[in-house]
């Protein structure tokens, strides 16, 4: 199995277990507002994990995006009357979902053994970026130089997706042109 040094193990394993616990609480709680807050806890744990894994750009972005997600989700759940969630469990659906998840997990276990071990990635393209990023673009932050210079098409597509999502939200929620009752 892969070898993890003591420092990363001490920092990462409790964070991941915390995230899994928060996710289980978010899935299984009856109250929708507590469920939303538990998802927020999982996202903040992810932000700290990014900071440990030496990705400070992602840590800042994930922290801020998580706050906005929480505001939107609370806005969607608050002031809505919540019907009781447990009206008898559907056992056929539960058992089939569990079987599917187990098959998925076992296939994932066999697939993950073929990956490179944790801490020793294959650096093919990244070597080029690491060695020549500063001289080719002049930006000290290599992540910015990758998203805006080497791979600008990704950012263009991302901007298109965001524009489409904003248009979709406004079209779905607007009042003009709806049939009045």
């Amino acid at each position, binding site marked *: 199995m892969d070898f993890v040094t003591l420092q990363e193990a001490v920092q990462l394993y409790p964070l991941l277990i915390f995230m899994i616990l928060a996710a289980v609480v978010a899935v299984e709680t009856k109250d929708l507002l507590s469920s939303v807050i538990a998802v927020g806890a999982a996202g903040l744990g992810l932000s700290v994990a990014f900071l440990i*894994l030496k990705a400070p750009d992602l840590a800042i972005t994930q922290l801020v995006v998580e706050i906005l997600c929480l505001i939107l989700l609370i806005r969607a759940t608050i002031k809505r009357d919540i019907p009781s969630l447990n009206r008898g469990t559907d056992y056929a659906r539960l058992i089939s*979902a569990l079987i599917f998840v187990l098959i998925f997990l076992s296939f994932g276990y066999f697939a993950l053994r073929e990956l*490179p071990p944790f801490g020793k990635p294959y650096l093919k393209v990244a070597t080029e970026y690491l060695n020549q990023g500063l001289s080719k673009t002049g930006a000290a932050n290599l992540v910015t130089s990758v998203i805006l210079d080497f791979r600008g098409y990704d950012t263009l597509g*991302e901007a298109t997706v965001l524009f489409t999502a904003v248009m979709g939200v406004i079209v*779905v929620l607007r009042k003009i042109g709806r049939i009045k009752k």
Partner: protein
Amino acid sequence: MIYLLCFVLFCIGLYCILVKKNLIKIIIGISIIDYSLYLFLILIGYRMQGRAPIHSPVQRIENMVDPLPQALVLTAIVIGLAVLALLISIAVRLYDKYGTFDITKIRKLKG
């Protein structure tokens, strides 16, 4: 081993999508799957005793982590937020029309 914990997180989100009947719970499941995927991509690019991929004017930094998955995940986070906002707006409109978040009661396609 640490990849497997990440996979367990993915499976929790998948279970939530498949079993739960509340629309907000399904959106929460999609968001948990998003988190596990971001974490998995960053874990693949990590190097042992790595440093953040930012050059310093004082010293030359060796052993940087891979900047490519970080750039991909940075765009994926914002796209995830946009998709989440679209799903929430559709759920709010469905609540406005039917008065419930339960997907088994939202059956009428018309009227």
